[in-house]
């Protein structure tokens, strides 16, 4: 029997885990059906604040306070809190690859369920420059030897301050044409907001951190030239067996 094929997102997660593991990041996980407490409150989203509207959240019938997580950032609070309960103070380095949800109509670039990879590094000396360096290394290794530049633009997220949008430019002969030499918006990121550390029981006077959340579907689309994000959940071997 011929070998079967791996889903491209699984392949990406395997690769990302290897790259981040070499940089000291542990693979962490958390529930997809999540409380607003971890999805919003712990992350410094004020109650009744318009920032919550940015999220297009799925709420649950007869389960007030529960949502399908809108980002993998729910694990920030869960991970830090659980470490502090075990008396394990920072430094922490974790990645959280996993499924997230947006309540929106689907088309070739939008899906209601997709994959994100969260990164969180907390320590006494973690800086925004480290965020740039970490992402540059990740993309360099993912695009094997290509020349990768990372650019920040100002942005806003309730759980980071400062907050940035991250653009990437990959150059090199082996880079897919769609990507080569172009600035592409990749993700939101920033320095962990002191309130997020405080909410999880970590002393913000002593520790700082960076966090980012990158769309894995988006990386897959760019890297392999996939033309429709809905193929990811198509369970169609005409697609899967190409990987």
């Amino acid at each position, binding site marked *: 029997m011929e070998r079967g094929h791996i889903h491209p997102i699984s392949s990406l997660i395997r690769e990302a885990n290897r790259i981040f593991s070499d940089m000291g990041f542990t693979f962490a996980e958390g529930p997809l059906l999540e409380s607003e407490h971890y999805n919003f409150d712990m992350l410094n989203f004020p109650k009744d604040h318009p920032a919550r509207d940015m999220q297009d959240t799925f709420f649950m019938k007869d389960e007030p306070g529960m949502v399908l997580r809108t980002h993998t950032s729910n694990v920030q609070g869960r991970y830090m809190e659980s470490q502090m309960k075990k008396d394990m103070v920072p430094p922490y380095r974790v990645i959280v690859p996993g499924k997230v949800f947006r309540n929106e*109509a689907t088309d070739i670039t939008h899906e209601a369920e997709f994959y994100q990879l969260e990164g969180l590094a907390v320590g006494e000396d973690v800086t925004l420059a480290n965020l740039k360096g970490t992402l540059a290394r990740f993309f360099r290794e993912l695009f094997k030897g290509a020349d990768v530049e990372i650019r920040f633009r100002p942005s806003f997220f309730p759980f980071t301050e400062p907050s940035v949008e991250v653009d990437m430019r990959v150059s090199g002969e082996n880079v897919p044409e769609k990507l080569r030499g172009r600035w592409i918006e990749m993700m939101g990121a920033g320095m962990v907001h002191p309130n997020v550390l405080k909410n999880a029981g970590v002393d913000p006077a002593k520790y700082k951190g960076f966090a980012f959340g990158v769309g894995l579907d988006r990386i897959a689309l760019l890297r392999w030239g996939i033309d429709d994000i809905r193929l990811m959940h198509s369970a169609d071997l005409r697609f899967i067996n190409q990987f």
Partner: protein
Amino acid sequence: MKISREWLQTYFDAPLPEAQVLADALTFHAFEVETVEDDVLDVKITPNRGHDCLSHRSIAKEFSAIANLPMKDDPLRAVISLEPKTDVIKITIEDAKLCPRFTGAYIKGVRVGPSPDWLRKQLEAVGQKSINNVVDITNFVMFNIGQPLHAFDAGKLTDKGSTRALTIRLAKKGEKLLGLDDKEYELAPSILVIEDANAGVIASIAGIKGGKPTGIDETTKDIFLEAANWNGVTIRKTSQALKLRTDASDRFQQVISPELTAYGTQAAAKLIAELAGGEIVGYVDEYPTPQKSWSVSVSTSKVNKVLGTVLADNDVADAFTRLDLPFEKKSEMFTVAVPFERLDLVIPEDLIEEVARIVGYDKISATELAPFSTKPEVNSNFYAAERARGELISQGYSEVYISVFADKGKREVLNKVGGERPYLRSTLIDGLREAHERNVRNKDLLGLKEIRLFEIGTVWGKEEEQIMLGTADEKGVREEPLKGLTSEIYDDLPTSTTERYKIFSRFPFIVRDIALWVPASATAEEVLEVIRSHAGELLVRSEKFDEFKKGEKTSLAFRLVFQSFDRTLTDEDANARMESVYKAVKEKGWEVR
């Protein structure tokens, strides 16, 4: 928010660069600019700056800081006095939490008419329709400095002993208002309104929509100009409940400073007196608890510790100066006296962000983290999933992802867009079975003898969430919980080596088999080559599926799959291709069985 370059220019003596240059400056130092069209920028103001940046003045302020280009004049730094006061209109605020400030001006003897060209053009540039001079001025002031205003026809407010009275209160059940948009709004007790108190009728929905009965028209002589400050959450909820978003509600729901009402009232009153005539009789100002001033401190070393930079005190001071953030420096500490409108500046990190974006994020280097002191833990679920993946793939199973939304299940989503498949799946079985059936139909196209699928995915019971491992093959579909496994290290498993994905045809395909007798000297490859070269470009797959020898001859059988990228093939299409194949093999002297 739409920002007109010409409008911005009114804040500067020096000529501004072209719109695209403005857009790039804003994008890399303040806000993303989504489009630039006809000298108008669509600026995406982030929610933290909704307090102060939904106005031309504030975008001018941002550009001034970014480009280090001085502004002619900042209207929000002027000294304002709301004198003289008038008692022609009496204001009562029932709950100051919902209305922290209510400011107004009574103007007598205006002439309502068309706006002058400059005003009409400026409003039109940002997508606003010109209505009349008075209404246009209230809109102009809002887009200019960010304070929404509303003008009442004072003559239509009920007079009692030569005073009029407005009460700010929550609506009563059953109360209604005919809006300026000619729609009737049914009000609920959560909605904040302004009541014409002498008549006991509602005059407007606070911060969102004026009422038709007290609106401005050509006959209006005396006006009462309102510039109030409203509770953001109340406005947001009202706006949602009434499905009514206005430029005013967009601003109030972001929470703006109550200090701004004075600037708004005075700017609008003066412009009305100038452009529509009339006399400013006096101002009213209910402001029970004035906004307190505050300061935020940060040191250069803290800035550098967060950003990973080596900025000097001068760099930090320069950023604050350009942003017009007044500061004092004592030993290490910069203490910024935050301007009243900058409600976003609360903690040291907020100031660090200000420094970072003015200095420029391009000045931040890419520095890798120091090596980590402890070895990363191996996640037992991920380890188990990876191990299962490795084993199943080696047995010919391919991995699929299937949507977690289903048409049955034990948990249901409340608000799914479109409403289809609102349940969270409680099993992988149904999805895998359906996917298996679907893929079986493509078996020949895929060149597979058997379809084998697996999924590692989440399912939901009544209480719990669980990761399952499901498989589907010709024997059936099954699932079991994925059990975590402990390990010291992850297995070294291959990743996909595919370089590019190839688009596949979504049209049906046609399968044809051909069997031949060939001399023993002919190889299957040679025969297949002849078949391929005569089958045409619609042949997408071809392979040998049978071979046996009988004396000097070999019997070979091939399966050919035809498919088009742009249409459904007919039998005739396939027949025509097969005819050329038959002809070619016969010419070779091979016998079609």
